[in-house]
Structure formats: C-alpha cells, structure tokens
C-alpha cells in the first residue's frame, strides 16, 4: 500500500540536500566520503524488485563499516572495471520522522553511465527505501536499501547506488 502521508517542507528540504550530497560523493568518486553517509553499523543493500517482493533475496547486504569499506573498494577500482562516469539523479523524495527520531525516507533514482568511449546511457533506475538518523548534526543512513526496477540488469553493476 502506498504511503499517503505528506512530507514536511523542512524535512523535504533536508532530505533533498542530503541526497544531493550523497549522489555527488558517488559520482565524484570519493569512496571515503561515501562511507561517511552511513552510521558505523549502517546497512547497504541492493536487489531487484521481484526477488525482494517474493523471496526477500537481495544481491548483497553490507552490514557495518567493514562491509561498507569493502563495497566502496570494489566499486572504486578493485573490480577490473568500474564505469568511467556515473551520474545519479535522485527525485520523488518523501519522508517522515518517527517518534524514535528515525526518519523513514524513500526516493526514486536514475543512474546514467558514460562508459569507456560511449555516450551517456541509462544504466539502471529504481527506488531507495531508507532509514536515516541525525548524527553529529547531519543525516546519515542507518539503512540504505536499493530496489532496482528491472529483473534483468546490465553488465558492470559494480557501482554504488
């Protein structure tokens, strides 16, 4: 069932700013900065829509800072190939703050890749289902779950989403 609650203007603005900086850290290939968007116990997961909705299977679930560092390394040079240029567009942002101060947020994302000598192309798109907390005066992910809106994905998904 869709969430019909409205997002306050202040929270929407805060989330838009957060996601813009998050996308920038990925697309500017700053993996150590990407890590700073998570709590030390933060979760980062990705999978495809059908698997998640039927079996609950994710491609991967990174749990905590060491797993996140490992993911950041693979997607920023440790794999033989990482796409040359990426661009994330994050939109349709919504959220609400729970009584325990956890912010449940969702957003759509579209990721473009300009790989090797190719022109920019749509790589994947999907949605984020996130839980954020405030830490040190800024938002950070407690959980960042990425649901790809396709069942077949392209090569070179060794990317941060």
């Amino acid at each position, binding site marked *: 069932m869709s969430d019909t609650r409205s997002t306050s203007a202040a929270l929407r603005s805060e989330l838009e700013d957060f996601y813009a900086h998050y996308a920038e850290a990925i697309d500017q290939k700053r993996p150590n900065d990407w890590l700073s968007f998570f709590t030390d116990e933060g979760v980062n997961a990705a999978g495809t829509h059908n*698997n998640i909705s039927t079996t609950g299977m994710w491609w991967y679930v990174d749990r905590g800072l060491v797993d996140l560092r490992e993911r950041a390394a693979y997607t920023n040079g440790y794999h033989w190939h990482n796409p040359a240029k990426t661009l994330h567009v994050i939109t349709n942002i919504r959220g609400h703050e729970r009584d325990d101060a956890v912010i449940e947020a969702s957003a759509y994302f579209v990721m473009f890749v300009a790989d090797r000598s190719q022109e920019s192309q749509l790589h994947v798109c999907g949605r984020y289902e996130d839980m954020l907390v405030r830490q040190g005066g800024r938002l950070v992910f407690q959980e960042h779950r990425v649901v790809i809106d396709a069942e*077949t994905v392209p090569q070179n998904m060794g990317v941060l989403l």
Partner: protein
Amino acid sequence: MTMLDPTVGERRGARVSRDVYTSDEIYRLEKERVFGRTWHFACLTSDLKKPGDFFTVTVADQPLILLRGNDDVIRAFFNVCTHRAAILTGQKCGNYGRVLKCMYHAWAFNLEGELVGVPYEEGYGPDFDRGELGLVSVSVDTFFDLVFVAINPRVPSLVDYLGEIVDHLGPYVQGIEAIGRNSWTYEGNWKLWHENFRDNYHPEFAHRNIHDIIPHYADRGGNWALEPAHSVLQWVAEAPNAKAYIRSLRRYSGVEFAENDTPSFSNPEGFHEAPQEVLAVFPNLDVQPGPKTRGRGMKAGYIQTVTPLSPSRSRVDMVVYSAVDDDPETRARNLENLADSQGSWGKISGDDTEAAHRCQMGAQGTGTRESIFTRGVAPGNGGQDADPRDEYSLRIFYRAYDDYLSAE
C-alpha cells in the same frame, strides 16, 4: 563445416577460430544445430509443484512453456497458440488453473495441451479437427530436482546426454528449491561465459580477491573433461590472507581500512579448507554448489545458464537454490548473501563479465584469428592428477560444439 583447427585425435578442439564469437552465420547455425538439438536446464521441479503450475523459457529464440498436468506429469510445449502464433503467456511462472486461454481469440488448451475451446467453432466448417491443433510438444525430462527441455534432441535420453557428469551432479540436486533468480546481460558471445566455468587457469589472475586471499588457489584443485561434452572444475580454498586482501583493496581504491578489519570476503569460516566444484553441462549450463564442508554446502548454490541474444550479446540467468528443509534462519542468511559473489555486481562474477566483454572486443581484431586451448598435453580428458589449470574441459566443449555445428 568445421570451425576448429583440423587437428585430429586428442588435441581436437585445441585451437578455435574466433569467427565462432563474431560470425552471424555461425550464430544462426548455433541456434539451429546446437541449441535446437541439445538439452537445456529450464527450472526446478519445485517450480512446478501442483497441477496448472507453469514455467516459461526460451531456447534458440523459441518460446517454450513447461506445465504440470492434472495427472501430475510435467510436459513442455511451444508457448505458441496454434491459431495465430500469439504466445500464451509472457509471464515467467505462475499457475494456469485448468485451462490455458490465448488472449487473442480465446482458443483454450487444457494442461495436457489439447485444444478444448474455440469460440464460434462452427465457422470453420465441418472438417475442422481440434485434434490436429493441440499445442506442439517438445521433449522434457527431469534429473532429480532439475527439469530439462529439448526441442529436437540428438541424444533422446537426458541421462545419456549427461553421461559421466551424472555421478558428480546427482548428489547436489536432490532436495533443493529456488530461493531467488537474477539475470544480467553482457556485451559478449555466450560461449565466453560458459568457457569461463571450465577454466581454472583464470581465477587467480582475473579475480583480484582470489589472488589476494588465496594465492595459487588452483594448486590443490582439479579440472577435467567428462564424456560426452561436460566437465568438472574443483578447488580447495586455503586459510585466507585478510591482511594482503586489505592492502590490495586499499591500493586499488584508496579506501581507508583499519588494521584489524576482517572483511566478509576473507572470513576464515567461509573459506578455510572448503572444497568446491563447478559442474559445466554442454552447451550453456553450470552448477556451482556451496563448499562440501559446510552444513548447507551440498544443498545451496547457484545454477546459471547463458542465453545468446546475438553473436556479441548474451544474458545470464541465475537461480539461487537452497535445501527445502533449511530452517528459517539459514534460509534468511542464504537469501541475503548467496548472490554477493555472483552477477554483474558480484565480487567474483563482476570480473568474469568484464573478461567476456574484453574478449568480445578483441575477437573482432584480425591480428590473430584463433583462440588457444592447448594446456595439458597428455592424451585423454585429464583427471584428478592433471594440472587444474589444464584445458581438457574446454577442448571437450569445442569438440562437441564442432560435432553439433558440423552435422547437417
């Protein structure tokens, strides 16, 4: 026609024309003579549990549907209405109830494929014969929990087709069920992917994590051919070197790690003394069970098929499976983590996909026109005592490939 080096005898299949990766004409023949005449993994028996359950696949560009009938028999048909050729379903799987009805003119077929309903049938005249217009069947057979289909098999018996791999594959594929499916495409010929799962020479080089965590990992492995066209690849992982892994992760990415970090991929529990196998079935299937030493190892792993989309583009379909009697906690852990190393996102397969793509780009080059599979010089198919990096498994693939491709 032969695509291979004319060398005869044991070394046949050792040098292969790179036209097999690029030629439109060979691609057309592959669909007709290889994919149209061999057995193909379709799904698991647990995907067809009750009458009306269906599963669809495409073999040689031809849409097929597998169905469990009211008599509990699994049948396979062309997923094509005999009236005007509309596919009966575009869905991957589901349950049809008692009747498959075409969306176009509502022709209806029962679960045994018989035509049982034609709206305004009298308009076709008195000679109209429903009996001639049932769904067209294709061969289907099971090997324990695996279901295979074949359009026009050269070897009618599935067990005969599997040959010597039966004893290797059998223990792994009993009491399992699918827990997730993923697919990805890559810009490369389909054989480049399948070759990869018969090749124990590349992992310590193509996968930085294997090089860093388990250097010379293949030293204790194996890789040999199984008649008539299959192979088994083995390795035994040793105690991982987490510190070397972290140094390398940092070196290639610039990501800062703490000295005492133990990344999950170098987790000793996951790798120590864990014999594993990849079983490759001609032409496009590989089964990679988990380590035999783990409690779940024998009954959890991956099944992958590669489907050609063009000479230079392919799709890999992966089934992640687990034991039917796994407890909820084990199942949840498997669901989350089994695919982490596989897929175009995977910590291992991401590099395999890249290798296939690079080979495809290079195969266009006219500088050299043959790929070389000559490692291992002893006669025969290799064996447990052969060097694990030898290429008997690849030569038996290309011998069979050439046999199929050359047969009118």
